[in-house]
């Protein structure tokens, strides 16, 4: 893991009318690192992703790319930098085959004619590099299972040679085996020295693949944990704020008081 994060967010804030959706959020993603972004519904995960992907730019704060401040105003800016986003609702065309979907919008052409042979060759190569197994690259995407569709969507995001991949709930609605396939794929992205931002509600998945977990709570950072040194309970309590209630605050206060009294004594 290199010292300079490939992508760093500094003091990101975002308002929607009367709602302060994000307040001073910090996040760093290093190359070859899987960072999980977790938080309850409404914690600001999607808003943060939209800010990174250029769909809904932040009001305040800076985004740093390789340590240099950059501006991400449009989805195009993010793609130019090398940020690929795989959204929850996969955005694949059911009627096109796997090759068609992989290269949609970036077709390989020889002069003006589509070069189907080259696209098929590159598609097979890409899928095999990622160990993605699909019956045939010429079947319509509609005939693939949910996990296969997800892997196709992720593979498609890799065609632009990105350096950071954002996966929004990649394992939601997937079965056991398919989830395992997607998690394997995430690990392969890490092996390829990509930075991965994984948004998930599933603690098991998060702990299985990520190196660090960034917790958002009510639009603020609520701790960043190294997975290997943290228990699931600590993360869950950071998400739900279980450690931040009347009882814990009172305990903290009394402990403080006790200390103060000791000093005064």
């Amino acid at each position, binding site marked *: 893991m290199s010292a300079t994060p490939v992508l760093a967010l500094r003091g990101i804030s975002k308002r929607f009318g009367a709602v302060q959706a994000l307040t001073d959020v910090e996040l760093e993603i290093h190359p070859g690192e899987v960072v999980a972004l977790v938080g309850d519904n409404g914690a600001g995960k999607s808003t943060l992703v939209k800010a990174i992907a250029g769909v809904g730019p932040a009001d305040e704060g800076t985004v740093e790319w390789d340590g240099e401040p950059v501006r991400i105003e449009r989805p195009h800016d993010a793609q130019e930098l090398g940020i690929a986003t795989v959204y929850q609702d996969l955005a694949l065309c059911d009627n096109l085959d796997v090759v068609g979907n992989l290269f949609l919008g970036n077709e390989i052409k020889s002069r003006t004619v589509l070069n*189907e*042979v080259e696209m098929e060759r590159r598609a097979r190569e890409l899928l095999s590099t990622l*160990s993605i*197994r699909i*019956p045939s690259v010429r079947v319509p995407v509609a005939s693939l299972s949910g996990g296969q569709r997800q892997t196709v969507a992720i593979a498609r995001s890799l065609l632009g040679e990105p350096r950071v991949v954002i996966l929004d709930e990649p394992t939601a609605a997937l079965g056991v085996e398919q989830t395992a396939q997607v998690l394997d794929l995430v690990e*392969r992205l890490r*092996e*390829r020295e990509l930075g991965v931002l994984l948004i998930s509600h599933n603690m098991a998945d998060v702990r299985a693949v990520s190196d660090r977990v960034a917790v958002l709570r009510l639009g603020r950072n609520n701790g960043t944990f190294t997975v290997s040194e943290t228990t699931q309970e600590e993360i869950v309590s950071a998400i739900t704020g279980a450690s931040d209630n009347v009882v814990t605050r009172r305990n903290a206060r009394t402990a403080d008081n006790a200390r103060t009294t000791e000093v005064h004594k």
Partner: protein
Amino acid sequence: MTTGTPTDGTPADDTPADDTPVNVSKAPSEAGGSGRPGSGAAEKGAAENGTAAPDASVATVDPRLLVRQKGFAGYLEDLLRRLRTGELGSVPVIVGLLVIGAVFQLQDSAFLSSNNLSDLFVQSAGTGLIAVGIVFVLILGEIDLSVGSVSGMSAAVLAVLNINHGMNEVLAVLLALLTGMAAGAIHGFFFARIGVPAFVVTLAGLLGWNGLMLQILGPSGTINLDDDGLVAHLTNYYFADKAAAMGLATVCVLAFLGFSLLDQRRRKAADVPSRPLSEILLRTVVLAVPAYVAAAVFNSYKGLPLAVVIFLGVVVIGDFVLRRTSYGRQVFAVGGSSEAAGRAGINVPMVRITVYAIAGTMAAVGGLFFASQINAANQSSGAGSLLMNCIAAAVIGGTSLFGGRGKTWSALLGALVIQSINSGMALLGTGSALRDMITGAVLLAAVVIDSVSRRTQKTAGRA
């Protein structure tokens, strides 16, 4: 892979010999992950320079996949399996054409005469050309109800400019086509940019352009065209030289064979699956038989009709645009999921507007053919059952009403079905009442086949 795995018809030899019986559920991950330590860096390099030798796992195939057997037997089996799972393609319409031909031939032996068949082809060109535009719109998953009125309006524009104002005929034809294109682009604009449902926009066009046509034609109501003009020649010019029809058939067959072989060679060079030679030869023969039969039919009457040449050319160009250009890919993508297409960077409104402009242009071309048939533009141009015939032709030919699937060839096949019924009924002298009922029934049958095949494909996991 939970769908599309028929339990029947899975011969053991479908699985390649080198694919040892592995535990299916874990095979995908282990093959690339822990199975080959230290391969991560190599894979990365391979992906970056894109020229490295194909990974070994390319050769291994999912054991659940119904792999095509090599050679001809595999082709036949694949074909039958596709039919069973609802990928009917052009089969129903070809069967329908044969049935229609046989029925009318039994009723009246003049039906299959070269004279009648040649006329039938020429008269189907107008409907078919408009249907080519409809195919584009149907692939988007939309509908265009205005093509009849647009075709009539374009004919009126041509007649007024050429006959009343004495404009050069070529220029007048171009302006008539531009009128159709503009009308289509206006529909597309209101649909794509303003967000009015296409059904309503084109319904307004159906009324509005018909009114504009009446306005253009003025009080006289009918304008006769020049008997020896360009437009008149569209449907009454024949290449009398017998070499023309045979030559065109030969060129088509050889071009098909040549491109198929070229494609096969390039696929082999790139190490991706290719069609076996036997399949290419079979396809060529299947194309060659009707091509030469049609050529012989034309030659035993007046020769190769110009209308057929233009119609075929438009169908081939349309097919090329849809299947071999990124524009065509964009049209299919928008028809499949406009949301996904937009996220992939496709300018969805632009695709929609241009598709409607294409439909308008093709309507104008078809309008000129209809004007050519009666050698006049009149108040009933583009009226009557023309609109329904054109939409029916596209659907009968196998283009789905549900969007995302279709071929311009369906316009050709569908137009032939419609015109065969018209022509047969005219021979029998049954009048338009029975003809319309039968055309309606055929359209219903086509839509039923479309819906049922879509459902079958869904259960087979292919739609």
